[in-house]
């Protein structure tokens, strides 16, 4: 008796999205013995978690788990990874799909040795999305140190410019191919798992919270990059206006979440993320006062509760129950005053701080652009799962806002749902 009895020969699974959920679904299915195509639109795997400094509540680096997952991919020929890949069309029915994908050019082939000569040769600086625009990078770049695949990429912006020629000339290994074109291909698959993830809610839309207007207001995802050793400040937390260490920091919870004008739902992770980021600040700025303005602190589950309790022991972390209504900048000091109504006392609380962190929530990627497949969404753009119909499933934050643990649980389960579709034939 072997596992192959359970898997039809033609049964393969397409996983769309190479973030932590997509990686999990792909690996868990492949390790049962199924062929998996993992498609990622970025030039690297890892998605959002690759931008995080640490996970809560263990305060461990996400690259630790990613590295193991990358090794699992390396050791498992059943997984085929396509980066810079987008799904263009899905035709067919459960058990029998044709998935047309577009592979965007990387302009760097498999001969790349990661020597970095191409980047050294480029001159133009391009805003770095990986660091949310807080730094620039060259037009030829390695997305980040532990990126998988470990290969440089040329930004489409430099194609046709002198920089591209310089990069090509600098490569000793004939790894740069400026003629590379986008190409289409069609994959036959029995099931598709959409792990298309989330985007940080656009903080500029929250007019009253001053993001984009005042220098010293950043988002929680920007804070992750600031705290990361490979971030724009090499792990130092510095306020943008003058690159000084903040002596006081305010976290504005539910920045956009639980708000009918923005995201009506709770984004699940932001409370824990701010508690975690309080530890980043405490580690680097031992005396900084930290103010957390919240509606409810949601630390679901024993492990998170324990973490919250630990943060409460910090006498310089102040919790204020109240929703922040407005922010003001002192144009001279660049300090920001946060105004909130204390929900309990009814008083207006004003707190002036050096740095404000907006705990912005998560919006499903599919909220803005619907996916090219016959899928159903809720009003907020989360994909609804129809287990009766089968065939296509959403995993992780494409399905609902969740933390990494829950996303991975969910993504593991979705691997089974996909397998069921194949086994049903």
């Amino acid at each position, binding site marked *: 008796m072997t596992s192959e009895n359970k898997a039809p020969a033609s049964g393969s699974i397409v996983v769309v999205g190479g973030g932590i959920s997509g990686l999990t679904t792909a690996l868990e299915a492949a390790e049962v013995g199924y062929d998996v195509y993992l498609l990622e639109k970025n030039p690297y795997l890892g998605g959002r978690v690759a931008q995080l400094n640490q996970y809560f509540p263990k305060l461990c680096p996400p690259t630790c788990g990613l590295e193991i997952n990358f090794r699992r991919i390396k050791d498992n020929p059943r997984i085929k990874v396509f980066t810079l890949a987008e799904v263009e069309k899905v035709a067919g029915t459960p058990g029998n799909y044709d998935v047309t994908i577009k592979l965007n050019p990387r302009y760097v082939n498999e001969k790349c040795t990661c020597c970095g000569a191409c980047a050294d040769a480029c001159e133009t600086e391009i805003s770095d999305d990986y660091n949310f625009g807080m730094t620039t990078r060259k037009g030829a770049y390695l997305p980040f140190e532990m990126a998988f695949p470990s290969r440089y990429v040329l930004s489409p912006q430099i194609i046709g410019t002198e920089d591209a020629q310089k990069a090509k000339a600098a490569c000793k290994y004939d790894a740069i191919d400026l003629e590379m074109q986008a190409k289409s291909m069609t994959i036959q698959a029995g099931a598709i798992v959409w792990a298309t993830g989330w985007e940080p809610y656009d903080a500029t839309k929250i007019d009253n919270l001053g993001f984009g207007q005042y220098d010293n207001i950043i988002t929680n995802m920007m804070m992750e990059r600031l705290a990361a050793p490979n971030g724009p400040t090499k792990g130092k937390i510095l306020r943008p206006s003058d690159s000084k260490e903040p002596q006081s920091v305010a976290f504005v919870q539910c920045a956009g979440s639980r708000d009918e004008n923005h995201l009506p739902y709770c984004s699940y992770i932001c409370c824990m993320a701010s508690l975690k980021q309080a530890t980043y600040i405490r580690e680097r700025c031992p005396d900084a006062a930290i103010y957390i303005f919240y509606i409810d602190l949601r630390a679901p589950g024993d492990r998170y509760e324990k973490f919250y309790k630990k943060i409460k022991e910090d006498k310089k972390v102040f919790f204020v129950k109240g929703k922040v209504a407005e922010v003001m900048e002192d144009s001279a000091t660049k300090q920001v005053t946060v105004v909130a109504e204390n929900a309990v006392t009814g008083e207006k609380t004003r707190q002036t701080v050096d740095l404000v962190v907006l705990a912005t929530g998560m919006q499903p990627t599919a909220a803005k652009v619907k996916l090219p497949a016959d899928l159903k969404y809720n009003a907020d753009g989360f994909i609804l799962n129809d287990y009766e119909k089968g065939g296509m499933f959403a995993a992780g934050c494409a399905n*609902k806002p969740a933390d990494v643990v829950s996303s991975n649980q969910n993504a593991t389960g979705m691997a089974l749902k996909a397998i069921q579709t194949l086994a049903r034939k």
Partner: protein
Amino acid sequence: MDKKYGVYICEGCGIAESLEVDALKSVAADEGRTAKTHPILCSPEGVDFLKKEIADGVNTLVLCACSRRVNYDTFRFDGCIVDRVNLREGVVWCHPRDKFPKLTEEEKTGGDAFDRVQMMAEDYLRMGMARVQKVALPEPFKLETTSEKILVIGGGVTGMSAALDAAKAGYDVTIVEKEDRLGGAALNWRSQLPVGDPYDKLIPPVIEEKIKAVQADPRITVRTSTMVARLAGQPGEFTVTFKKPGEKIQFDVPYPLPPEMLVDESGKELDAETLHKKYLEYNEGRADILTLDPDGELFGAVVLAAGWRPAKLEGDAYAHLGYGAIPDVVTNAEFEAIAKKGKIARPSDGKPAKSVVFIQSPGKDEDDSDFSYAGAVTSLVSLKQAKYVREDYEDGKSFVFYQHMRTPGLNENFYKSIQQDPGIFLTKGNVLSVAKGGGGLMIEATNTLLGEKLKVKADMVVLAAGMVPVTKDDPVVNMAYRQGPAFRDIDLFNGYCDSNFICFPYETQRTGIYAAGAVRRSMTTEEAMEDASGAALKAIQCITSVNRGVSVHPRSGDMTFPDFFFQRCTQCKRCTQECPFGALDDDAKGTPKPNPTRCRRCGTCMGACPERIIGFADYNIDSIGSMVKAINVPSEDDYSEPPMRVLGLVCENDAYPTLDIAALNKLSYSADVRLIPVRCLGSVNVIWIKDALSQGMDGVFLLGCKHGDDYQCHFVKGSELASIRMKKIGEALTSLALEVERVAQFEVAIDDYDKVPQIINDFVESIEALGPNPFKGF
């Protein structure tokens, strides 16, 4: 396999610019090997060149090029042994020639000068050549017969979901349920929380439908009024003995002796024979774990979905809430039972309870914690039950006092729908007291959204008690494992059978047994059903991995397994005790009985064994020991000021990648260290350290993951066990008149690439301060 060796040196990526390739070739020649070079080994031409070599008979390749983390697929040659000598990241990139200059022509002829970087490369080549002589291609371990059946423990919503999911994928499943019918906790519910979009109203319990589906599924067998007496054996062939609750049978699982019984009156450890005698007495009437039940039923893998019990609210902490003293103060579980019976009536006199206060947090001393084991579920349950009052009575009123309304994610929609109900009052509040008064109850709270002080009159009070995992009270799964019948170390998770890994929620210390639902974390029905799917997948995956003879996570696909040379076993039991996964069961004498499919291939047993009788095909005492011995240790006979030699045993999971990234960033560290990747620090056998020191190396360090409560070790215990062993090694060093400081262990996280060079350099400096190893040159 008749080995035919080949040594190949890549000249690309700065290797040939930095190193004297001819000198490397002569190092190979010294060992009787002919080294061949290629300008770019990973290029299509380079790979063709290697393939031709293989076609010509080479089957054991030493590739001197880049780190094994890259070009893994390019250099995968099935049927060949491949060693990756890491010249690029390990030597050249982290030792740039501007910091580590080459010898001048003058120095080359002078005699007393040496090139540290070249020496490093030559050592790594020697080490690679030594290793391939000592390793073999792995052959998978396969059971004679594998059971593909899945056992699900617990017939509640989680267990039934897992069973249905596994059955739908084509697997046969047996559910055992200790009660006389399926359903579990959900049987007692009037309504339940939403399990899907739009999450805005209560729904009828899904449990009845699940029961019907289970009963209609030909692949699912249900055994009610049944529990697991013992689960013996290993994944792929678990032998399970069932029994009726309350029965005492021969195959009830025996328990290990408690710590106080392991020693005599003076605190001295008892000998094996006495211990075994005591163990038999302690477990009288129960067969030893190695006695296999001939009537046991075989299963391949297990889903543990044993669920939860309502928390008991006992003690002074709750006295102010009147629970136990006032009959109309009940827990949420008790309230649910009342609501299930019909219109809500007060327990004291059976009169309608039209006004009910729900208390989510014990309050009183300003602590904003909810009741223990609450999770986020009890907030939602309070809202659900507040709705019951409104369903039953047009003029019914519910008050919910909370510290934090925990309705995370899309459950916020349910909270919002409750907020629309004019008869449900929701407020933050610190409840001071519940007392009898005015023909009902009087609840006093402070610090509320409705005023500083608030008094509410109510017919009933409901306390939001938490969900205690049943594994807190009882092992349930009753593993016939020498390490004991329960999941290990679950105190760390308050009794939940959880994994400590954020990325790998199903990976516990017990292979092939996957916990799901409320036994893992307090969960809503929706979460529990999802979790069940995940656990079912893991159970199936474990079975297919066993079938292929490969390991499961984190060394998924690894075909090696530990091999024991039993003739030399001294029955010290260390391997059995230290295995993080309980893979070994020793017999009465203490000889370990391996269970290869429980094993996760970390090598902790190999590290633990003082007789060095445990090894893997491609990773063993001799393979690493030979690498250590292959390191040249220059002495004063060679140079007037010989360089230090420091050995680093480096965990391949986190520390080794960290070093690669340091190299990618051109961060450099001492060229006097020699690094050997190990599967886990737990696999480090102290003999390697002793060997290194006795051949004159000046220091040894271990580089691995964080240990402690938030351990990052992928094998749970490896770095912790290594640190214990390192403490013990101090005595051995002292007896050799060596300073204990010559051996150290450092923790690094994978993103510490900017710190790791400093860690290494500081250690090398401290060794230099100690001076050379006195054994050098002997």
